[in-house]
């Protein structure tokens, strides 16, 4: 598995939340910008309409009080007008025909009797314009005010049309405190939503990050050493029903498959190593036993000729015992090699039965042994190994209290041995998959035993077959050809 340099910032667990955060912030910024633009436009439009309407209405309502110079009534009107709207931070000023303030909505800022020259310059210009009949006029100013304001002026005319005063109305263009609070609340909501989105992004990506961590651990510790172990992938990931769950399950299946392949490779290597040892052993047997046989024959010939004195006879005995000891030692050490070459005898089958019976007894299995040595010659080692493997598998499959039976049948061309068991059944499809090495069960030994047996039988030209035969759960038939193909070597 390729190792990629770690870049924490480039992982999905960060990229996705960051991307969502970016989208949220960009969206929020657009919302705020649009809100401000719309608000600005609305405020200005409202200010123009409200101011024009206000000064027009006041210019009519104020005629009588201005004529009477009724400060209190004028004040009541302008105070009511300036506080009519909760968002209007406007100011209203009434100038009399003597250019003095008759009343203002903020009397402490513009006291009664103040001269018009106390007003900001642009306000004064509007008063002059209104007095000469150019009312109403509007002007935007920031003079003496914290925020931009729209100023509107209108002349107050008597019934005869004479200008008896001027009313000025200032309408703030900026946001009122209430509007600012509303905007801040909306921005706060956007901020909270952004945090929630980031948290959601982290939560969505967390399973992918967890799977990535599992892969990283497998990568760091080495796949071959772990085999089919998938404990590092949390169960919660495997139980998910979404794409992440599919990915986790596929990853675990891949781990198992790779683990099986690694185990198979090790078995093959072991088999090949044993084959090499066998070849060496056969060579040693050939190269050591033959000369010893010659030497022993020579000793026998010398004794047959006679005339050996007692001293020489003791010497020859010593030589013969030494040679036979060497032969026994070689035979003992290289028993496998020597055994591979001898033909199947009744003793081999008996030994096999003796070997299996205690094992079956410990497992609570009833073993029915009806295997008869074939008349034709068969290599003892693969036959013994195959029958041993299949018998052990059958005992495992039968389970405690089960039955296992072996019986043989000889024809002109083959010696067939059937290994049957009660208990757990093996389907034909699973048999084919196991023998073909495509699928091994959780109990690796069963699959491996079948596969090795199939290979051993194939080596001598035979085959393993799955047979349906009541009342047995599973019957495996081994077909040994009676014209065996000799293995290479020795």
């Amino acid at each position, binding site marked *: 598995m390729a190792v990629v340099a770690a870049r924490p910032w480039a992982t999905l667990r960060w990229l996705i939340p960051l991307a969502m955060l970016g989208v949220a912030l960009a969206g929020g910024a657009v919302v705020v910008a649009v809100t401000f633009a719309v608000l600005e436009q609305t405020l200005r439009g409202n200010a123009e309409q409200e101011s024009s309407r206000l000064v027009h209405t006041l210019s009519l309502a104020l005629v009588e009080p201005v004529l009477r110079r009724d400060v209190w009534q004028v004040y009541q009107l302008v*105070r009511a007008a300036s506080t009519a709207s909760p968002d209007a931070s406007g100011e209203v000023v009434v100038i009399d025909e003597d250019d003095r303030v008759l009343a203002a909505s903020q009397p402490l800022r513009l006291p009664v*009797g103040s001269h018009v020259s106390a007003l900001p310059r642009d306000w004064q210009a509007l008063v002059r314009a209104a007095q000469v009949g150019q009312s109403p006029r509007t002007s935007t100013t920031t003079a003496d005010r914290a925020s931009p304001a729209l100023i509107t002026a209108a002349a107050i005319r008597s019934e005869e049309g004479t200008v008896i005063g001027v009313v000025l109305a200032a309408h703030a263009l900026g946001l009122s405190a209430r509007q600012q609070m509303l905007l801040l609340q909306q921005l706060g909501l956007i901020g909270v939503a952004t945090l929630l989105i980031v948290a959601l992004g982290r939560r969505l990506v967390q399973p992918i990050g967890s799977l990535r961590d599992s892969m990283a651990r497998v990568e760091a510790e080495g796949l071959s050493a772990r085999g089919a172990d998938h404990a590092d992938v949390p169960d919660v990931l495997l139980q998910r029903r979404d794409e992440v769950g599919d990915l986790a399950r596929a990853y675990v299946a891949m781990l198992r498959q790779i683990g099986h392949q690694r185990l198979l490779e090790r078995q093959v290597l072991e088999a090949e190593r044993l084959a090499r040892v066998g070849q060496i052993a056969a060579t040693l047997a050939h190269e050591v036993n033959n000369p010893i046989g010659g030497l022993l024959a020579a000793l026998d010939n010398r004794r047959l000729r006679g005339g050996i004195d007692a001293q020489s006879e003791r010497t020859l005995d010593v030589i013969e015992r030494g040679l036979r000891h060497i032969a026994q030692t070689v035979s003992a050490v290289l028993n496998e090699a020597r055994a591979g070459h001898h033909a199947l005898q009744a003793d081999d089958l008996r030994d096999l039965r003796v070997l299996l019976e205690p094992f079956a007894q410990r497992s609570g299995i009833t073993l029915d042994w009806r295997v008869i040595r074939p008349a034709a010659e068969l290599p003892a080692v693969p036959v013994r190994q195959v029958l041993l493997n299949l018998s052990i598998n059958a005992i495992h499959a039968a389970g405690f209290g089960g039955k296992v039976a072996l019986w043989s049948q000889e024809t002109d061309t083959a010696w067939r041995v059937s290994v049957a068991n009660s208990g757990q059944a093996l389907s034909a499809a699973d048999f084919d998959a196991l023998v073909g090495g495509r699928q091994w069960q959780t109990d690796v030994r069963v699959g491996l035993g079948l596969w090795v047996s199939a290979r051993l039988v194939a080596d001598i030209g035979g085959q393993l077959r799955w047979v349906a035969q009541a009342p047995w759960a599973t019957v495996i038939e081994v077909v040994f050809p009676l014209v065996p193909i000799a293995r290479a070597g020795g």
Partner: protein
Amino acid sequence: MGLLRRWAAYLTDALGRDVRLVPFAGYQRVLEALERSELEAAWLCGYPYILRRARLRLVAVPLWHGQPLYQGYVIVREDSPWQDLRDLRGGIFAYADPLSNSGYLVVRHGLAGMGFEPDRFFGRTFFTHAHRHVIDAVADGLADGGAVDGYVWEVLREMRGARGLRTRVIWRSDWHGFPPVVCSASVSEALRLGLQRALIGMSASEAGQRILSDLYLDAFVAGDPGWYRSIERMAGVAG
């Protein structure tokens, strides 16, 4: 039910005839309505009663703190620097009504007593035609000072709290006869006496006591025209 409606209901019940109570802005309008017989009786200031006493007859006088007396106040904004009536010279002053004793006459008389010309003492004056509006005008800064009925100011202070009025008193007048209930001279004596008995009887009934309590008054008494001689004297000097 509002105070005026409860009071009208009480009087209707006491007099055995339908009584309506109508609020008026400005004493001049009250006098005109009395003269045109649009009103039969009115709760009026002592000054217009003196001015029109030939055509008005005293019905009853309220007792406030056990006395048929009250004062006129000059008030200023609570945070203003002024401490005395003289400090308001050249300033903007709010009168209650040109026919008000406490809201006009007593201040002019006081200024005259100090040696000032009342019409020239202030830089600018205006009328609000109600004592409550005088308090608002001063509190808002529309006027530097104002003349107000001491009874009205004290009652509002009790209702709104000391800070609620945003004004303080810098001058108090002498004690004068409390604004009386009067009736037109064209009203029958029987009705005048009936109304007088009804008003005096308020302190003897539960409903009447509740109304008096809401008005911050103790009771009504028959009263005496002589209680208003001090106003008569001031009107002769500064009216």
